[in-house]
Every structure is written in C-alpha cells, then in structure tokens.
C-alpha cells in the first residue's frame, strides 16, 4: 500500500523545484524601479509582468521577493522598487513556484494580500485501489489518483506569467515521470496525461489555472494478520 503522505510530498517537492525563468548568475544592479542588467535580456530569459521573482546576491532587503510590473530587455520594474545598488557580477533573479502556497488544510495565503502576490494551492486526490495479481497476500496492488495544482496569477497582467508558470510545472510532470516514496514507484499517467486548464478570471484580482496530474502506482499487497 502506498504511503499517500510520502507520495504527496514527493509530488510537492518536485513542484517546489520548478524554475520558470532565471537570469542565471549575471551582472545586475538595483534601482528605485527594480533591476537593470547591462548584458543579456530579461525578455529572452522569459520574465513577464505578474511574475513573482526572487533576487539573490544583493543586500538582504533587496533580496526580498517582488512582483514584476513591467519588463524590457534590460530593465525590470517591480512593485515597490528597490534601494539602489551598483552593478555587480554573480547576482541573479529567479521566478519559480509562487512563495505563497496554500498546501492542503493550511491557512489561505491570499488573506494577507488579496490580488497582490500570486499563489498556488494543491489537492491530493486518491482514487482507486485494486488488486492486480494473485494470491492476494504478496500480490500487486495498483492505486491511482490525481495531484492538482492551481496557479492563482494576478489579473490584468496578460497571460505570460501564468502560462509560463503552469507550462514549467507541466514539464516537471510529463507522462512516465517516476516519483519514489518508500521504495514504491508512482508514475505520472500518460492516457490521459497532465491536463493544463484554461485561465479563469476570478472576482478578487486573481486568474486561476489548474494543472491536473493523473498518477498510478503499484506496491506489494500485505494482508494484515
């Protein structure tokens, strides 16, 4: 029998490692509007308005997460701006899974700042549990279900931030992807595979997009004495 907490954790950990856009280590300066780069392009790196970003290599205050207001090849304007810091190599800006995460049965993050920061929610949905082979004791059992992630992006920021985020997540859960938990392999199912939903505008400054990840896993059946 699968340990659903461990399997769910494996799915969650995989989602948490997603990188949507990154500058990689590069030369960056901080300005009252946001960030500036003399080399490379924020656009080519995939940044877009509405994305939450996490800077690194600046002072502590400037490393705080922020949301992109607008972006060009060399400038990134963020909500609230930053204290000026001269250009220095080895800095980076990364956009990944939103830092506000409503994991199952936890406090809802949007209550703190509705419509200001993107966030994600998850649902672990166990479904079937079937004996595949005999005898029952020691036989193979198959379990199936869904892992559902909902990306709550900011309204009126265009589709790029949400679509690129969900696409990056989808790429982490392509059919056949194997996740291990307690020695049991759980595979992302391929027919149907991962389903990327439509963008649905909500009433509170958010637009949702749901990613449905079907999975199936087998384990050895143990008949309790």
């Amino acid at each position: 029998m699968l340990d659903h907490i461990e399997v769910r954790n494996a799915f969650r950990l995989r989602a948490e490692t997603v990188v949507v856009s990154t500058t990689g280590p590069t030369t960056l300066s901080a300005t009252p509007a946001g960030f500036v780069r003399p080399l490379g392009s924020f656009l080519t790196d995939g940044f877009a308005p509405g994305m939450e970003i996490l800077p690194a290599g600046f002072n502590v205050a400037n490393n705080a997460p922020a949301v992109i207001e607008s972006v060009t090849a060399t400038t990134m304007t963020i909500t609230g701006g930053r204290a000026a810091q001269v250009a220095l190599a080895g800095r980076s800006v990364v956009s990944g899974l939103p830092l506000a995460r409503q994991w199952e049965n936890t406090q809802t993050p949007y209550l703190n700042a509705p419509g200001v920061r993107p966030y994600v929610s998850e649902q672990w949905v166990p479904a079937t549990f079937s004996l595949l082979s005999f005898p029952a004791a020691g036989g193979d059992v198959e379990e199936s279900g869904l892992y559902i992630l909902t990306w709550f992006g900011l309204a009126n920021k265009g589709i790029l931030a949400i679509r690129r985020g969900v696409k990056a997540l989808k790429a982490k859960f392509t059919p056949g992807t194997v996740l291990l938990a307690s020695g049991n392999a759980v595979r992302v199912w391929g027919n149907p595979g991962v389903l990327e939903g439509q963008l649905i505008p909500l009433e509170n400054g958010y637009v949702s997009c749901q990613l449905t990840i079907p999975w199936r896993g087998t384990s050895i059946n143990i008949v309790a004495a």
Partner: protein
Amino acid sequence: MVSTFSTDLGKFDLKCKATVAQVFDGVVALVGESIVIGSGITGAPGQPEDLRDIEWRRLPEGELVALVSTTDKSARSVEDGISYKYGTPLKKLKSNLGGFHSVKLTHAAGDKIVASVVRTVTGTG
C-alpha cells in the same frame, strides 16, 4: 439456407457493431454514474447532495460520441474545488455525500471504465 463466407462475414459485422453499440451505451451510463453518483471503478466521489438532484444531460453527439453535462452554476466550482463566485479555493463542502474533481477522476480512469463495460457486455468478467 446455404451459408456463404460473405453472409457469415455480414453477420459477424452486425454482431460487432451491436457489441460496440452496447459498449458505448454502457460507457456513457457508467461515465454519467461516476460523475454524478460516484464510482468504485474510477474513485470519483460523485456530486454533493444538491448537485445530484439537478438535471445531468447525457446527449448523443455522434455515432460514438456523447456529452454528459449540466448547466448548474455551482457545478464547475465543485469540480475544480474553487469558488468562482469569491475567487478562492473551496474549503468547505456542505454535504455528507460527494466531493470534488469527479469529472477529472472519471476522465483519468477512462480505460478502467471501458474495460469494466467490455467485461460485462462480452461476459468475460
């Protein structure tokens, strides 16, 4: 009556078509049941009480295509676990029956539905 290969083939063809039609009808029925009432085959919990009583249409859309649907406004919220009225995740279900994601769970278990119906129709179960 003399049987010929062509007439035998014709009978077999009719039998196959009848079987396919039976399987199709069975699949549509099981899909509808899974979405609305819930199913052990798919693991879908079905709809909450208030959504079980409304009209769920099962409309043929082609020879082997059917649509299972409802026009109820709250059905989508229940399916996705999101309150589209308030823009937040649904955290409560005001029913002792049913749950979320029954359409997705039914879709994900399409192969199990077809296998189950084929076993019933062909008597191999």
